[in-house]
């Protein structure tokens, strides 16, 4: 490969996060951009992180790249691959070098120690022992350094961690083996020590690599998208741009249609429709009048509007929410996972027993005391625990990722098995989170439909927009409607064919419908009415039924109004006493705090405070970055069925861990007792130890590889696929 910098001055490479990249075909399409767009020199995709590195010839062609990517049907966002990414990369390479050195040395040591075990004598034995020693030195000083460093930091700070017994065994084993080597009697354990270091490094590397690959970049996307804002210059009255950080109190800021407000402020334009769902969870857009407050993070659904800046950054309402979130995350006491606890408790016990036995028995027979207690420590090394449980977890994480579930903390997987209550948010979780046409209550003829379309076409109201979107798919005759007038709060009226038409909202008393209805009147007579609202996701109802069969208690919490929430709850079969509406984020939080073992599935920043307080929290796709920050688990696919898969995986993972624990308990107790009685010498211990590790590893592999998901789930998927086929 030719070095890109030898061809003169090039603009620095850019990194993009690319959404929607799934298969090899997508990869080729994206990398092929380098042949199609001028100015782009090389596109290199990293599929495991969903990012693309782009090199340019001379000038920066970010815009061209972005355009081409979106033309291909993907979404790209430029990200700053900061120094931490580079550091991680270097760290990974270093660990891999450590593993390589340990593996090479271990293999060669084994060659010599096998000859010695087989009975090499005299000068051969002498040289083989010394060669083992020399080969062990790189393992000790290079490969095992992370463990020894943990040991040193324990001596300094006195905070315990699971690496301490490992460090202790390495140090003790080395000292003893070296002593035996010099005094030319007794056993030498360089082979088992090297194997120990190698296996431990491998399992750690596997775990960290999986965590880094799937967790880092997806969360790098900034929270409020706009990095620069357009503002009206107070002197020249011209529109100019400046970075968001430089916005000060009183600036007049222009926000275009579809953009998110970057600041809290007063509206200067006469009206604006705002999607407030980030703060309220309510899908129906709110109308804001001149002088009223507009909050950062909400979305402008009307045309371009001007806003007078009042608060920016951390001081905005959303900023405060995020700050509170950070505190929540830090105040959460991290549950030390089952593996850590067991390994710590276990190793302290073993070391304690070893020393106690040595102290007592050394008065009887000093050499034998050393041999037996060392055999115990080698045999009962925590490697079975420290190796197999992280492996089970990482394999389960992998399995989850393949089903579109990203788990931020491995302990969340463990906590899922303890869940008894499941709390759903409504907007964007059980529903699609968008205003859509639902159904006609009274379907009009084609001409009336066309009139309706003409009337609503120019309206800026989001309900009108969703109706227009639906109607524009139908083939309708063209009608010319005259005298179209929009009266705020009244609806739209116009004249066609000498009839007076009017569209307005229908208010039905005592209606349980979760939808908003609008009606079309011809000369004061109702000729059409339609339901509009937020559609429930297809898989939601079967999912909730299955969860209820699995004996979970389902709750529905929402900030939306009672009528809408209860209507949806009813459709999904959630009992009325488990439905709570019109809750503020703080109320949601206090509700969840009262419940033990609560799983919260939500979306949007208004849930994130509540999510941070819950036992396990899940964010579904399309949710705010803030929600991802607070939640433990993220559903990458637009599919609530992931929840069932997640529960299955968590269950299997816990079972495998338990099986491992049971095996290692039996093994350690029997072998430990035998070692103390003198039936197992350190040599046999060094053979048994890797064998036990191998057994435990096999248990983990078998336990996590063949996870079957519930059959009903598969049927569901099939049905959905059929639906998709019909649609296309």
């Amino acid at each position, binding site marked *: 490969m030719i070095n890109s910098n030898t061809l003169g001055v090039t603009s620095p490479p850019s990194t993009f996060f690319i959404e929607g990249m799934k*298969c*090899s075909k997508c*990869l*080729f399409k994206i*990398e*092929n951009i380098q042949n199609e767009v001028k100015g782009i020199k090389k596109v290199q*995709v*990293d*599929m*495991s992180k969903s990012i693309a590195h782009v090199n340019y010839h001379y000038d920066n062609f970010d815009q061209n790249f972005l355009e081409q990517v979106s033309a291909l049907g993907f979404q790209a966002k430029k990200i700053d691959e900061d120094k931490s990414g580079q550091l991680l*990369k270097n760290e*990974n*390479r270093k660990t*891999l*070098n450590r593993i*390589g*050195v340990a593996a*090479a040395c271990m*293999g*060669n040591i084994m*060659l010599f120690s096998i000859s010695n075990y087989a009975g090499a004598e005299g000068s*051969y034995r002498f040289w083989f022992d010394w*060669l083992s020693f020399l080969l062990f030195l790189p393992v000790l000083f290079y490969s095992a350094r992370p463990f020894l460093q943990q040991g040193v930091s324990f001596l300094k700070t006195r905070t315990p961690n699971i690496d301490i017994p490992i460090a202790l065994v390495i140090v003790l084993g080395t000292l003893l083996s070296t002593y035996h080597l010099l005094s030319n009697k007794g056993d030498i354990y360089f082979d088992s020590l090297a194997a120990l270091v190698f296996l431990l490094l491998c399992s750690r590397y596997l775990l960290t690599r999986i965590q880094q690959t799937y967790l880092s970049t997806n969360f790098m996307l900034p929270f409020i998208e706009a990095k620069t804002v357009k503002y009206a210059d107070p002197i020249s009255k011209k529109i100019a741009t400046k970075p968001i950080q430089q916005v000060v109190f009183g600036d007049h800021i222009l926000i275009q249609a579809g953009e998110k407000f970057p600041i809290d402020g007063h509206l200067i334009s006469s009206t604006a429709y705002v999607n407030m769902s980030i703060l309220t969870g309510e899908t129906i857009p709110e109308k804001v009048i001149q002088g009223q407050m507009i909050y950062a993070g909400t979305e402008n659904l009307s045309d371009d509007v001007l806003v007078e800046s009042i608060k920016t950054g951390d001081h905005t309402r959303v900023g405060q929410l995020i700050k509170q979130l950070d505190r929540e995350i830090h105040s959460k006491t991290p549950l030390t996972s089952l593996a850590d606890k067991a390994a710590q408790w276990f190793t302290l016990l073993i070391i304690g027993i070893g020393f106690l036995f040595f102290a007592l028995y050394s008065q009887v027979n000093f050499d034998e005391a050393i041999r037996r207690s060392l055999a115990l420590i080698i045999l009962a090394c925590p490697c079975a625990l420290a190796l197999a449980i992280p492996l089970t977890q990482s394999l389960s994480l992998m399995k989850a990722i393949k089903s579109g579930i990203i788990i931020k903390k491995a302990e969340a997987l463990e906590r899922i098995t303890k869940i008894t209550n499941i709390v759903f948010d409504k907007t964007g979780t059980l529903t699609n989170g968008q205003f859509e046409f639902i159904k006609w209550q009274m379907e009009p003829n084609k001409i009336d439909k066309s009139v309706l379309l003409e009337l609503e076409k120019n309206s800026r109201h989001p309900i009108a927009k969703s109706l227009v979107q639906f109607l524009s798919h139908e083939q309708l005759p063209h009608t010319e409607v005259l005298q179209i007038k929009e009266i705020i709060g009244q609806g739209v009226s116009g004249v066609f064919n000498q009839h007076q038409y009017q569209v307005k909202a229908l208010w039905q008393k005592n209606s349980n419908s979760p939808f908003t209805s609008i009606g079309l009147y011809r000369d004061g007579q109702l000729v059409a009415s339609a339901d509009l609202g937020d559609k429930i996701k297809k898989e939601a109802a079967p999912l909730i039924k299955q969860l209820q069969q699995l004996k979970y208690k389902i709750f529905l919490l929402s900030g939306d109004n009672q009528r809408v929430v209860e209507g949806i709850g009813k459709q999904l079969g959630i009992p009325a006493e488990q439905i709570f509406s019109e809750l503020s984020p703080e109320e949601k939080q206090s509700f969840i705090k009262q419940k033990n073992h609560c799983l919260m599935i939500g979306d949007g920043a208004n849930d994130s405070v509540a999510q941070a307080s819950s036992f396990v929290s899940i964010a579904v796709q399309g949710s705010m970055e803030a929600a991802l920050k607070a939640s433990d688990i993220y559903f990458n696919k637009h599919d609530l069925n992931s929840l069932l898969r997640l529960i299955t995986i968590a269950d299997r993972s816990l079972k495998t861990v338990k099986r491992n624990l049971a095996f290692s308990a039996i093994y350690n107790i029997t072998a430990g007792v035998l070692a103390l009685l003198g039936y197992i010498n350190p040599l046999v211990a060094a053979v048994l130890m890797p064998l036990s590790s191998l057994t435990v590893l096999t248990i983990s592999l078998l336990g996590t590889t063949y996870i079957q998901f519930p059959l009903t789930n598969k049927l569901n998927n099939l049905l959905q696929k059929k639906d998709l086929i019909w649609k296309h």
Partner: protein
Amino acid sequence: MEALIFMVPIALALGFCFLGAFIWANNSGQFDDLVTPAHRMLNDDDLEKTNNNEREVNNESTTSI
């Protein structure tokens, strides 16, 4: 058994040559991304470009049958 005097150093030297090769490969970034190259291998667009003429000939021959 004297053969060991040669065998052991040769075995060690060979072993460490491969270790050196591994470290070189690792430091030059060959193991940074293990997912994408597996997919990239399946792309035969570049084949099409170089073998375009041959392919056309092949297509003609199949259509004539």
